[in-house]
């Protein structure tokens, strides 16, 4: 009997070793900004080499990504909406939230800047736009960027201009929203990563330029969230391994090294 048990144990150990050697798929629920900019495409091979994890991702708005996390449909989350993330953890859907990189948001608008917002703070910018009733394109999709935009309105002491005709609620990804803003001569809030990718594609001839940047309210923090144990089927160990890679020296360097059109898109800031 004892021999039987030890044989079983040996087989188990061998099986585990076999699994460790083969690339283990891990499904990340993430946002359009990490995928559309090409960051994940760039990091995936490095992650495979360093950890043996075959990273795959579902890129949707942060709201939907969190919903996928709640339903245990992904192994780990990589999102950027601190407020919603904290609520997600308080409600018991996640066990930890690790900040690992940031980029920032910028307010872009038509070159002519009809509402004269250039150089203003984020709050003043929105007040000016609202007073001028200048067209403003909103993501309108409950994404991280949309959530940030709503906090900006709040910070300016204004209600979200939901029903106003100059407030265009797009309901699509960031690049689509930028294109619509360019077509309609509207202002919009975008993460800098997507902005650089967008500008690079249109060779700077898009008709939109950065008009307000650098305000503390415009910082865009990305975090990795490990899901609660109630998700019994997902790969908790692999998720921890992936999280560890992102905050490791190698991971942080890979993030800093990722450049588009010669510009660094994300700044690593794991503690």
């Amino acid at each position: 009997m004892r021999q039987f048990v030890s044989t079983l144990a040996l087989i188990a150990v061998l099986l585990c070793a076999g699994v460790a050697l083969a690339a283990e798929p891990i499904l990340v629920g993430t946002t359009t900004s990490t995928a559309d900019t090409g960051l994940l495409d760039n990091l995936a091979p490095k992650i495979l080499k360093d950890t043996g994890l075959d990273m795959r991702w579902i890129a949707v708005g942060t709201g939907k990504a969190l919903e996928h996390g709640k339903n245990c449909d992904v192994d780990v989350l990589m999102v950027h909406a601190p407020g919603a993330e904290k609520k997600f953890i308080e409600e018991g859907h996640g066990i930890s939230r690790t900040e690992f990189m940031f980029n920032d948001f910028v307010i872009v608008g038509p070159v002519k800047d009809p509402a004269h917002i250039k150089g203003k703070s984020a709050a003043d910018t929105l007040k000016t736009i609202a007073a001028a009733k200048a067209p403003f394109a909103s993501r309108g999709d409950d994404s991280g960027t949309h959530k940030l935009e709503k906090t900006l309105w709040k910070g300016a002491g204004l209600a979200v201009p939901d029903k106003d005709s100059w407030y265009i609620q797009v309901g699509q990804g960031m690049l689509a929203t930028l294109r619509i803003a360019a077509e309609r001569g509207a202002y919009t809030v975008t993460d800098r990563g997507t902005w650089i990718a967008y500008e690079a594609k249109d060779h700077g001839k898009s008709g939109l330029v950065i008009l307000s940047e650098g305000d503390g309210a415009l910082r865009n923090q990305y975090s990795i969230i490990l899901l609660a144990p109630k998700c019994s089927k997902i790969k908790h160990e692999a998720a921890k391994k992936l999280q560890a890679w992102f905050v490791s020296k190698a991971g942080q360097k890979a993030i800093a090294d990722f450049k588009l059109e010669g510009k660094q898109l994300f700044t690593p800031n794991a503690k």
Partner: protein
Amino acid sequence: MDFFSEGFAKAVALILALDPETFSAVWATAGVTALALFASLALGLPLGFGLGYFRFPGRRAARLFVDWMLSLPTVVIGLIVYGLISSRGPLGEWGLLFTVPGMALGLTLLGLPIIISMTATAVETTDTRLTQTLLSLGADRWQMLIATLVEARFAMALAAASAFGRIVSEVGIAMMVGGNIKWHTRTITTAIALETGKGEFATGIALGVILMLVALAVNLLVGLLRRRAA
């Protein structure tokens, strides 16, 4: 709008270069379409035949239901299937979400009403003289059934072609249930949606051209088989 010509040129370039990303999407599309079409036919042909051939109580209600389901929006099918196969859904155990079989399940729900409805119509409208002639020749029930089946075969092929067209070009279910995962569940249509979202209109057109070429190849093949059979 120079992205049209650019798109066509890019389609040729992608095909000639055997671009791995494009072909991965082509194979995902082919796999998911084949699975969904096969399941729709396996379930839909017998059900459609039964619905058109036999007279039973509740038949008209069943017929109405099937025709009604033809209008079910694909986004709603996507949501329903997501709810069913999500880890916390009733079929979560099967681990189908964000996989090719999961997408095929959703697309089967799309194809099934088309096959059932068109097959039922085909069987209902087979020449009534056929039945009378067969009866007068003393055919038994089985011989009648087989004869009707043979008579309706082209109409059933048309049903299959219609379902194929719907399934291969679907994007809502594929996006919601498949998740558009690169190298795995990214089909040609979800890739087009992604590229369009990224502002890569030419690449979107190129992929559209490739999808239409795949569909043309399938239709040519079916045409060939039909001519052989006739």
